[in-house]
């Protein structure tokens, strides 16, 4: 190798170095360290961590709370992902049309995303408060139904969180759909109209396929978000009652920083990573082939 090309090589590596160092330090190393910790026992003051192999994973399989939390999370994902994406698409199509006050509408839809999560959770906490909360004022005050503790009942608490999350996410995803819709030339819609396509047909065969790259992006984000919700739970329910609203990441937080069982928290984290990784691979593998990128 001559000197000039060596210099180019060094240049390239130097340019890569900052990003590579950050990635390695804050992404790759923690991931590997977590794997390492999950194969050891939790260190205590008198006893350092010892190698336990897959013992932690065996414990996980036998942990009923883990299965409950995983179940909660799957329901939560099933409840939030399709609904928030569908709602985002609907709102985007609507505010993309020629309606008066659409700038205001776009802003209104985006507001939930701008608000801090903790503030949002507190607002919704008020909505769900028994007797004098907004929801109760409607159901009890107006409809005369019996009072109900929405966040304090096992059967309703998860649904309440799902509603908050959809409200929060839909506006955010709408922005992506709106940007994608505006990138579609209006002449495509006009051409379809001249060929006799109605609005629904045009949406189904032209607009929606052209939005597929955005849908994939939004879907990946929605899946990740549904598995990493913590803030709302901390403020609104702390996982209760009886773990009915505890999701995977909140459970990890509980195990790691309340019970100080770092080895088991690492084990749970590996499971979460595996779930998200598999989901991302599946999404790309199945959808990629059906997507047209411009």
């Amino acid at each position, binding site marked *: 190798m001559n000197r000039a090309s060596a210099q180019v090589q060094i240049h390239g590596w130097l340019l890569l170095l900052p990003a590579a160092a950050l990635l390695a330090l804050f992404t790759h190393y923690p991931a590997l360290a977590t794997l390492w910790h999950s194969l050891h026992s939790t260190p205590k003051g008198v006893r350092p961590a010892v190698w336990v192999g897959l013992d932690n994973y065996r414990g996980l399989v036998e942990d009923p709370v883990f299965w409950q939390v995983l179940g909660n999370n799957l329901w939560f994902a099933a409840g939030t992902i399709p609904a928030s994406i569908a709602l985002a698409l609907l709102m985007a199509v609507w505010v993309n049309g020629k309606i008066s006050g659409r700038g205001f509408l776009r802003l209104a839809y985006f507001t939930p995303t701008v608000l801090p999560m903790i503030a949002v959770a507190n607002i919704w906490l008020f909505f769900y408060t028994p007797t004098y909360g907004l929801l109760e004022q409607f159901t009890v005050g107006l409809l005369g139904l019996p009072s109900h503790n929405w966040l304090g009942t096992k059967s309703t608490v998860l649904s309440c969180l799902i509603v908050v999350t959809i409200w929060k996410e839909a506006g955010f995803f709408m922005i992506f759909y709106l940007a994608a819709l505006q990138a579609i*030339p209006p*002449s*495509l819609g006009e051409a379809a109209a*001249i*060929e*006799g396509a109605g609005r629904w047909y045009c949406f189904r*065969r032209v607009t929606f*396929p*052209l939005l597929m790259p955005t849908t994939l992006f939004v879907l990946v984000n929605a899946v990740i978000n549904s598995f990493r919700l913590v803030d709302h739970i901390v403020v609104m329910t702390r996982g209760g009652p009886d773990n009915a609203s505890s999701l995977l990441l909140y459970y990890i937080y509980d195990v790691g920083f309340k019970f100080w069982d770092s080895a088991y928290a690492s084990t749970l984290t590996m499971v979460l990573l595996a779930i998200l990784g598999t989901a991302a691979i599946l999404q790309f593998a199945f959808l990629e082939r059906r997507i047209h990128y411009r």
Partner: protein
Amino acid sequence: MSAISLQDVTKLWGSARAVDGVSFEAAAGRFLVLLGPSGCGKSTTLRLIAGLEEVSSGRVKIGDADVTGLPPARRRISMVFQSYALFPHLSVAENIVFGLRVRDVPVGERAARLAKVAGLLGLEKLLERRPSQLSGGQQQRVALGRAIIAETPVCLMDEPLSNLDAQLRQEMRREIRALQQKLGITMVYVTHDQTEAMTMADQVVLLRDGRVEQNGTPDELYGRPANVFAARFIGTPPMNVIAGVPGIGEDRLLGVRPEDVRLDARGLPATVEAVEYLGADSIVTCRAGGDLVNARVARHARAVPGERVCLAWNTDAVHLFDARTGKRIQ
């Protein structure tokens, strides 16, 4: 019977009149060109015929039917867009049969019509490709295919050749014209390029500021321009319009085509400003009083800039216009 007729059609954008009382008719099977400079309302007129915009007042008729209030799908038209508007996620074949699928044409007939159109346009080998894998000329053909497979009596085209290079444009010009005559379609074709208008049209409607300046055959537009605007718009270089020529009257303008002007021993005194050699002939640009006058001279003109010459023409080549209204006299 006329295939298309516009009666006093007006389109307002706010208070601006994009199309201002336009009326014309096109007979069935004719090639009508809407010609004019950019911003003259020609594309808007086409979109009004297509139903993509609503008229502010006036009527649009296609065939026997008054389609003024009808949506585009029910006007029995097809359209080729300037940007082609091909669906980027669909194959060439799917693009072409898009409208047939919308209208639930049976699979067998769809395939037969696709094969016929593909053969007509030389697209047989490209049917499985995506639009992004085609050249500009091929995309143009696909857009044409999508328009003609519908077999509608009327086809609208909005500057379809403006994205092609000069060579291809010339080819496509001939091809579109041949196709139109072969299929007997009534064509409404928008362009700002007067060469396209002259070479393709049966009938030219010249527009300016939303109004019809002249409506006639290419021969009429070239041979008898109705006003100074038409005279100066048609022809490369366009007609010379000269003010203050002795013997024609103060309030009149004299028009004469460059090919009718010759450099002579006697006539209108002028000074040569520039000589443009085109091969077969040269354009000699002269200044006579306040006006520039072009003369088309065979072969390579020997005049040099600064030289004093006299410009002459035959009296039967003269067009006279009213200096105040710009209208043709006689």
